[in-house]
């Protein structure tokens, strides 16, 4: 039974009942309900427990600003934390639980905290951190468990999300009377308009009342306006679309909820996305985001049953749900008088309106008087009874100073209290756009001031609260936005509404009570979501916090899911009061995007799973997969790490692969190596700049190793460049640096060497590369080619030849990263697999063995060859790496040259590349291990270097390592120590070259 459901009225469909569960209990609501309105209709008064003190809390608001009714929704892949019950559209089978109610909302262990609330003053986090660390471990466990807001879902999100770009002339944020007027005017003028509103139904505050527009029901005007907008081909309406963020250059993000109102979807996934993130670039923006009502700060103003007056109207008029049977209104302004009239009309007993003002007197006040409702002017609510649901209040007259009471309290029985402290324009998006806020002392709120982007605010978010003003401002904003984009269509006339004079507002940061704030048992909450009281703010001020940003962080004011939508301004007012400052002096904290939480899934969109970072594979990838390769990634590339045979682990497989290359012939997929085609008469000039050595002397058909430096003298990349023709070179970069090296050269060519005739083309993926290496490599290649003379004299190490290999046109480079006789056969990518298969077939009689990147690393480390990301880590110069031989002494200049002679670069104690042989040959050092010279008994022990590469060398039958060690070259022969987690290892510093020091195998 829905005890608090009105028998008629509202925008719910009583013919469509929906079943739902809240905290394990079954209830029924209607289509058109929110979870909050359905709970209210079912007389569920406690919907959660507060963050710090675990006080029972009820529904306060009807919209986005709700601080208490946060629920954990759904389960498994559909679980969601901290959903606001006021924004959850009810669907059949909805299952929600209060957050922060451990172990249950009625019997709450955390309420014990309330009795020890002295332990949780302002800044309790910081103060707790100062307790002895040992105790902190104990308290943290307790506080974390008791003070959490929601639980992070454990299962992966079952839903998919879309992202979409959109461009428009005018984006209108908010679909209330101002927003609709703006969209209509701009649309009529011919503008491409996007109108987004967070609600399912457009109309904004008109949905919550019964205002008239153009002398007929306001909602009829809304319906006609929507019809007209829908008929415009260039207008897009986005209901359930929250304008979440306002970024630079009029770029805004709108999160549109597509299926939340239907509940978890059986076919959830890319075909049925849950939400869509719109990335909108708007020429003009009209902000019509409305206003949020302020609460009043009085004794125990957080009890269930105490609600915002505007929310009470929304529940009565829109949802046909009443908060109770007897309600009092407590206000400092005229707007809540409408609430009293609505309450009376819904059959609620209204024993009194309590008004802080001595002389209330607007239009609505007059209507209330005529209705015969008692108005207690110059009165305050001084206490409330009913911790789990309001039972009554005490009211008392205020003395002339406004600081104390002028008479004895009088008790009024009621089960709810509608409160209004005035309205705060929702300036969030305006503020995100960098706009400056001005303080309006008459309205007692911040309003938009100077703009920084192409936007304007209209209606309640601009401090214009009356309907007539909203319609006029919205229309004018639509007209001027269209005009600003150069559109000249006729916008039509603004809609009109009756102008209703309102009385002024009486601002009181805290309402006077029986005891001063901070004395007595009552708490005066400024921010109910974060359990921040006026006393906390006063304490923060006493402890020296003066800046609003500091006070916020110290007290946690305005943090958490609602980001201070209710509590922020109330807290700033309390801060101003404690400081004896004005509101403009105190200011506000920064409004940051998003306005309301946007799911991470929506930000990720479809870029999840395999699409999070696309994998690049070579033309031979399928072969590697069928050969059972274990893959490793280099940037986005997937490459075989090793090819285990039956029963082999990685160590055994790598050992076998290494020995096959050293003893026979191995085959490797070298396609991922970066390849940059360089052509033009100034190619040599450019190479002379970007590499440390000289390139003029390189003959056609020859290759040379190059080292590329940044202007800081640090090695960026290294690789072999071949001269293919007179003005034609092919540069090889390391796999991971291909894009970086290309960028670097382009940057210089475009910015500095504008007259150079040289063109760069990235051809990495155009060529497939089959590398054969080992003493039998020449014999194998001879089986596959007839038109290339493979003799050592005709085709020496570091040269390139063109011809046919396995009948495929190929470039063959005789270069080596293993120290063995080695050919890299390049063919057009489409021939890669054919070539690989042909080489495998021909190689059978040589025992050809595929080898992966790990074997390559072992083999190159045996030779002391460098690896990007290991030895080349951005902090080493070519001198550090012992590459003096690769630095031209003749060239006047090259990039980074001058840095090599800076005093810091020529210091003897720079880290230099050395080899490292452990005293115990079986120990393989961990890469990154720190090296110490002198082992001391206790720290600090200065380190002199670190291990950059470390492997077990099968051919040497022992471990080898490369390391960067301070002044390392002069220390060769010395013994150093490496303190590891479980033991200390001794090792000898050696030259960084362990195998075939004369290079005979290369040149064989």
């Amino acid at each position, binding site marked *: 039974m829905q005890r608090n459901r009105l028998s008629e009225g509202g925008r719910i469909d009583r013919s469509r009942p929906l079943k739902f569960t809240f905290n394990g209990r079954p209830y029924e609501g209607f289509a058109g309900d929110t979870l909050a309105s359905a709970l209210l209709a079912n007389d569920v008064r406690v919907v959660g427990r507060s963050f710090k003190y675990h006080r029972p809390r009820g529904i306060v608001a009807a919209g986005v600003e709700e601080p208490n009714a946060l629920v954990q929704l759904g389960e498994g892949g559909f679980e969601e934390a901290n959903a606001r019950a006021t924004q959850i559209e009810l669907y059949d089978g909805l299952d929600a639980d209060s957050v922060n109610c451990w172990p249950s909302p009625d019997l709450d262990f955390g309420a014990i905290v309330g009795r020890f609330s002295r332990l949780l003053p302002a800044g309790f986090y910081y103060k707790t951190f100062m307790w002895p660390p040992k105790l902190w471990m104990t308290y943290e466990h307790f506080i974390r468990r008791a003070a959490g807001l929601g639980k992070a879902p454990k299962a992966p999100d079952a839903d998919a999300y879309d992202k979409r770009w959109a461009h428009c002339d005018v984006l209108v944020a908010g679909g209330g009377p101002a927003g609709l007027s703006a969209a209509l005017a701009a649309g009529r003028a011919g503008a491409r308009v996007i109108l987004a509103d967070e609600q399912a139904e457009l109309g904004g505050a008109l949905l919550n009342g019964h205002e008239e527009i153009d002398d007929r029901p306001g909602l009829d005007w809304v319906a006609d306006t929507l019809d007209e907008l829908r008929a415009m081909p260039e207008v897009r309406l986005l209901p359930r679309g929250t304008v979440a963020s306002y970024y630079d250059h009029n*770029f805004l993000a709108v999160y549109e909820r597509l299926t939340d109102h239907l509940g978890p979807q059986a076919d959830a996934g890319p075909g049925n996305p849950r939400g869509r993130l719109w990335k909108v670039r708007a020429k003009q923006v009209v902000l019509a985001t409305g206003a949020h009502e302020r609460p009043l700060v009085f004794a125990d103003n957080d009890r269930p049953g105490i609600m915002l007056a505007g929310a009470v109207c929304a529940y009565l008029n829109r949802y046909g749900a009443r908060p109770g049977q007897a309600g009092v209104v407590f206000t400092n302004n005229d707007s809540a008088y409408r609430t009293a009239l609505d309450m009376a009309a819904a059959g609620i007993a209204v024993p009194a309106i309590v008004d802080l003002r001595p002389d209330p007197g607007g239009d609505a006040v007059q209507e209330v008087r005529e209705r015969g409702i008692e108005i207690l002017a110059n009165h305050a609510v001084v206490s409330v009874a009913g911790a789990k649901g309001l039972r009554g209040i005490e009211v008392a007259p205020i003395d002339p100073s406004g600081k104390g009471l002028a008479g004895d309290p009088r008790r009024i029985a009621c089960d709810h209290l509608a409160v209004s402290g005035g309205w705060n324009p929702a300036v969030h998006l305006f503020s995100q756009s960098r706009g400056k806020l001005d303080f309006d002392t008459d309205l007692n709120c911040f309003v938009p001031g100077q703009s920084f982007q192409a936007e304007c605010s209209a209606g309640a978010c601009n401090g214009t609260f009356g309907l007539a003003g909203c319609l006029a401002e919205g229309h004018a904003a639509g007209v001027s936005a269209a005009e600003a984009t150069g559109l000249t269509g006729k916008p039509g006339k603004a809609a009109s509404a009756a102008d209703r004079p309102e009385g002024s507002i009486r601002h009181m940061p805290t309402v006077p009570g029986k005891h001063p704030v901070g004395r007595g048992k009552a708490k005066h909450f400024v921010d109910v979501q974060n359990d921040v009281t006026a006393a906390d703010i006063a304490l923060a001020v006493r402890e020296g916090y003066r800046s609003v940003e500091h006070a916020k962080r110290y007290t946690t004011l305005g943090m958490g899911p609602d980001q201070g939508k209710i509590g922020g301004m109330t807290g700033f007012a309390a801060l101003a009061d404690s400081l004896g400052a004005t509101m403009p002096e105190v200011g506000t904290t920064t409004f940051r995007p998003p306005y309301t939480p946007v799911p991470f899934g929506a930000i990720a969109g479809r870029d999840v799973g395999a699409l999070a970072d696309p994998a690049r594979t070579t033309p031979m990838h399928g072969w590697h997969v069928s050969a059972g390769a274990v893959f490793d990634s280099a940037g986005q590339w997937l490459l075989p790490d090793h090819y285990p045979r039956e029963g082999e682990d990685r160590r055994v497989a790598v050992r076998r692969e290494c020995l096959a290359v050293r003893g026979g012939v191995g085959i490797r997929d070298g396609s991922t190596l970066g390849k940059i085609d360089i052509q033009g008469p100034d190619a040599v000039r450019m190479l002379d700049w970007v590499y440390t050595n000289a390139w003029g002397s390189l003959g056609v058909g020859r290759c040379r190793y190059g080292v590329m430096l940044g*202007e*800081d003298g640090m090695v960026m990349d290294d690789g072999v460049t071949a001269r293919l023709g007179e003005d034609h070179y092919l540069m090889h970069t390391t796999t991971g640096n291909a894009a970086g090296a290309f960028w670097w050269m382009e*940057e210089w060519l*475009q*910015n500095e060497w504008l007259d150079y005739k040289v063109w760069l083309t990235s051809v990495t993926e155009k060529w497939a590369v089959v590398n054969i290496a080992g003493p039998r490599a020449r014999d194998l290649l001879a089986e596959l080619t007839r038109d290339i003379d493979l003799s050592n004299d005709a085709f020496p190490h570091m040269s390139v030849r063109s011809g046919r290999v396995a009948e495929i046109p190929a470039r063959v480079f005789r270069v080596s990263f293993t120290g063995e006789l080695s050919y890299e056969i390049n063919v057009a990518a489409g021939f890669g697999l054919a070539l690989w298969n042909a080489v495998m077939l021909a190689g059978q009689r040589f025992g050809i063995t595929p080898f992966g990147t790990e074997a390559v690393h072992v083999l190159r480390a045996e030779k002391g060859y460098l690896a990007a990301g290991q030895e080349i880590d951005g902090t080493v110069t070519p001198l550090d790496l012992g590459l003096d031989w690769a630095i031209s002494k003749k060239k006047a200049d090259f990039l980074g*040259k*001058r*840095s090599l002679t800076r*005093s810091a670069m020529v210091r003897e104690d720079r880290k230099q590349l050395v080899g490292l042989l452990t005293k115990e040959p079986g120990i393989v050092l961990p890469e990154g291990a720190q090296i110490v010279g002198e082992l001391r008994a206790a720290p600090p022990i200065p380190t002199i270097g670190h291990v950059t590469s470390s492997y077990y060398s099968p051919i040497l039958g022992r471990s080898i390592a490369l390391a960067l060690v301070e002044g390392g070259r002069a220390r060769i022969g010395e013994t150093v120590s490496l303190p590891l987690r479980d033991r200390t290892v001794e090792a000898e510093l050696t030259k960084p070259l362990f195998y075939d020091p004369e290079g005979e195998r290369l040149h064989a």
Partner: protein
Amino acid sequence: MLLIECPFCGPRAEVEFRCSGEGHIARPETPENISDEAWADYVYMRTNPKGLHFERWMHQHGCRRWFCVARDTVTHKIRAIYKLGEAKPALDEPKTEGEGA
């Protein structure tokens, strides 16, 4: 996200571009003749102003060409866009608004 008018392609979203740091930094003509300090100033030191900043951008996911941008680092307002090799435009320093955060 900024909207940047590539001089070659037209207005495009910032995600298509990469900022390439401060512009109008001349490489010393004869590095071997200058002090360590002067060279380090060229390599490492940048003005990092609050306000008007002359910088280079590259249209990475478009024409892949570099160009110059005069941008206000406080408001992100783009004051001028011009091609490489063109002179620094004469622009007023923006008024300081005392804006923080």
